[in-house]
């Protein structure tokens, strides 16, 4: 198998255009971070007062604790589920594969509300279980609730890249190990996990960064992380909010850089396409596996969807005459189209923007590439409201850019800045999937750079890139804080509709919006991403 592995970056000089492209990309992604730094200077933040106090350390500790625990549980669930659905004969594979990425699209504030409504005292589950004597359900508030919600709704960050990896990974090593009599668990541990380690790391990193930037779940569950404090302080105590944003950004950068230097030592296995993937017979583990997969997706998708379905049905069947409390599917058509449009454009743009940087970091040793990469990834950890305000600030600095203020392109730029990291990790892995010698061989045969890219490299990278595009699309479709601040007046998405319905206590309309969001993202994920990943 030695011939199939591609060595890591080599000491070749990267082409100048590529370097320039990466430099410009890095500078654009630096925007939000630069804004935070500038605001701290402008406000004259007294760091001895903001940073070196318990009021900052405690939330920071909670952010890191929540981020790490959610990353670990998501890594386990995401990897396990990817292996089960791609590599084994688990019954209903096709259905599992479509459902598994979807929990990502449930906005954390909606998911948390559904979980509370289901499990809290006097909630739906208690109503169902109390006739059989079960009334004392575990308390879902605080850390436990936030951890559960975030794990259930972010594990697809791991699942999607790892599943794409499994789908395109040669089964020959696994097959040999099995033929040599290794038990399935040993094979999983010693062959499967190391081969997909870079994807698992990439996904877990996204989960970590998302978790420390999330506001919806921690707010709803009452767990005070740094991001929750940034939101609550941003208006009346901006110096503290901006100081804490800087802390959050620096922590994210540190984690990203640390992970990257560790990642250099990881085994890279080149991906070789195979028409007939390995299917591991689960045998007597078949039904426990189904039970496990059901437990995860039951809580992350089917359960919330059922809660939303129940409320929507109640609203639709007994129409409420009170203004603002009506339930109307027709009101969701335009927001749904807007959501699909922004999701698709952002996904395509994000891939196009980060691919040069990914290419540079995967193929060459380049400081510029590393720096640009770190900026892109860290942008994910800043809260959406900070990203949005930074764009407001920079764009209004110049009259030319100012004419783009509150237009769709600027909103999409905000999404790309916020979620580009989800594509860059996937793109990095995808570039690693292209055997270097293939391009060399084609070049020897006289194929030009552009032709080589479109006929050889892009198709080989497609599964990895699409997995990244899928993540960006799903995240964009549910994004709320930046959407509300930057969208053109009158521009509605499903996410803003769901939020607005929730604010006026129109539970049925809120639930219907969530159902439409899940259905729409399911269709798009299938049509744009999953269908095009080989062997998926």
């Amino acid at each position, binding site marked *: 198998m030695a011939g199939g592995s591609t060595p890591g970056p080599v000491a070749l000089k990267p082409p100048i255009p590529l370097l320039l492209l990466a430099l410009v990309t890095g500078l654009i992604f630096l925007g939000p971070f630069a804004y935070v730094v500038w605001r701290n200077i402008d406000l004259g933040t007294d760091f001895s007062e903001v940073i070196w106090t318990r009021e900052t350390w405690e939330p920071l500790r909670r952010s890191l604790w929540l981020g790490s625990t959610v990353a670990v549980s998501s890594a386990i669930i995401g990897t396990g589920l990817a292996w089960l659905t791609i590599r084994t004969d688990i019954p209903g594979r096709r259905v599992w594969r479509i459902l598994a990425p979807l929990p990502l699209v449930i906005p954390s504030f909606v998911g948390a509300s559904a979980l509370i409504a289901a499990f809290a005292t006097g909630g739906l589950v208690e109503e169902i279980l109390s006739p059989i004597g079960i009334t004392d359900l575990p308390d879902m508030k605080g850390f436990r609730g936030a951890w559960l919600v975030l794990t259930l709704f972010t594990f697809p960050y791991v699942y999607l890249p790892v599943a794409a990896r499994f789908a395109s990974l040669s089964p020959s090593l696994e097959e040999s190990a099995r033929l040599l009599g290794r038990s399935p668990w040993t094979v999983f541990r010693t062959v499967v996990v190391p081969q997909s380690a870079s994807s698992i790391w990439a996904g877990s990193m996204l989960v970590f960064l998302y978790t420390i930037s999330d506001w919806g779940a921690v707010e709803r569950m009452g767990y005070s992380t740094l991001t929750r404090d940034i939101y609550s302080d941003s208006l009346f105590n901006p110096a503290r909010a901006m100081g804490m944003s800087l802390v959050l950004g620096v922590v994210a950068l540190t984690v990203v850089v640390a992970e990257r230097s560790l990642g250099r030592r990881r085994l890279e296995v080149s991906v070789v396409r195979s028409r007939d993937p390995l299917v591991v017979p689960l045998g007597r583990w078949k039904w426990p596996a189904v039970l496990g997969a059901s437990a995860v997706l039951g809580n992350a998708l089917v359960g919330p969807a059922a809660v939303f379905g129940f409320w929507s049905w109640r609203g639709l069947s007994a129409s409420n005459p009170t203004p603002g409390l009506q339930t109307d599917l027709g009101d969701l058509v335009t927001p749904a189209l807007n959501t699909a449009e922004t999701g698709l454009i952002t996904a395509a743009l994000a891939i196009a923007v980060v691919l040069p940087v990914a290419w540079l970091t995967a193929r060459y040793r380049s400081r510029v590439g590393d720096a640009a990469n770190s900026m892109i990834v860290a942008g994910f950890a800043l809260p959406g409201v900070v990203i949005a305000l930074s764009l407001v600030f920079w764009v209004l600095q110049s009259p030319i850019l100012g004419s783009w203020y509150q237009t769709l392109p600027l909103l999409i730029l905000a999404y790309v800045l916020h979620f580009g990291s989800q594509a860059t990790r996937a793109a990095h892995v995808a570039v690693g999937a292209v055997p270097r010698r293939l391009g060399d061989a084609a070049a020897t045969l006289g194929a030009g750079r552009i032709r080589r890219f479109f006929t050889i490299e892009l198709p080989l990278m*497609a599964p990895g890139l699409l997995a990244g595009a899928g993540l960006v699309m799903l995240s964009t479709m549910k994004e709320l804080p930046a959407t509300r601040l930057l969208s053109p007046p009158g521009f509605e998405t499903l996410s803003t509709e769901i939020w607005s319905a929730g604010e006026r206590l129109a539970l049925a309309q809120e639930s219907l919006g969530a159902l439409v969001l899940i259905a729409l993202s399911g269709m798009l994920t299938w049509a744009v991403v999953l269908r095009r990943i080989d062997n998926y």
Partner: protein
Amino acid sequence: MLGMLNINSVVDILPAMTKLLRTLSAVLALTLVASACGDDSDAGDDASSITVYSGRDQELIEPLLDAFTEATGIDVEAKYDKSANLALLIQTEGDNSPADVFISQSPGALGLLAGEDRLATLDSAITGLVDSGFAASDNTWVGITGRLRVLVYNSELVDPADLPISVLDLVDPKYDGQVAVAPGNGSFQDFVTAMRNELGEDATREWLEGMAANNSPNQPKNSAIVEAVGRGEHAMGLVNHYYNLRALEADPSVVSVNHFFPTNDVGSLVIVTGGAVLESSDAQDAGAQLLEFLLSESAQSDFVTGTQEYPLLPGVAAPEGLPSLEGYTADTINYELLGDGLRGTIELIQESGIEQ
């Protein structure tokens, strides 16, 4: 090794990829063109069109804005978000803000912007439409509707005889663990500011610490408290009056009930929602016209039916089944303090330990 690469699959996926890319770039190009065109039509500083930032819900405000356009011929573009977020946006936009009018859920955000000289001075004919306590004394903003602070309780868990007379009674150990609060929420903060104003710093701190010692459960916002009280998760909670009326409209079987504090109690504060015209606006007259319109009899009645809030225009009937606003001590409360004093309030709340 090349043999392991299945060339067929490469060829298979290529047309699909190219098609996808082509479609996406077409969509992108169209969007850019469309939005660029949109810009041109908006250009110009004529007052035939204004932009409103509304912290109040779209379902409620949009019909009123449409009626305004019909009556005056002035087009309105609206942006909806939380009041605090919009205030933050106006701050960040500075003099380049496209907003002409800001409608806020809470006086806190208005007071903050007024303190930073972002709000224009309104004609006293407009601020004079409401009682003097319901507008800024420097005429930078005017109240539009009022909301009453109440104690919502679960009628299956609480005997009405056990209800407190004053909000200050809630620190009694007999209410231990029973009264939910939303310390991070704007209306709770406005209420605490009013308490500082009425009773002073020390009494307020004492009350907050008493509530903390009583293990008052936390919720993120009013609606979450009302839902939790309805389910029986908490026995009582401090909220604005209309959330429970709303919950009852959505589901009449809910067992949560509003308890009103006596008119002279600090617990029964009236919190106003209000509106202002921005100092940076180049359509200040049209903006003022909109505020005037929102204080017209028909718009005020629409607020009453749409939200069950109190109208601030004298002569418009209050929502059915609610105590009359007369007699409440609302008009003695200094709303400027509610804005400027908010930072101090937040610090006081954070120090008291009421936040869990």
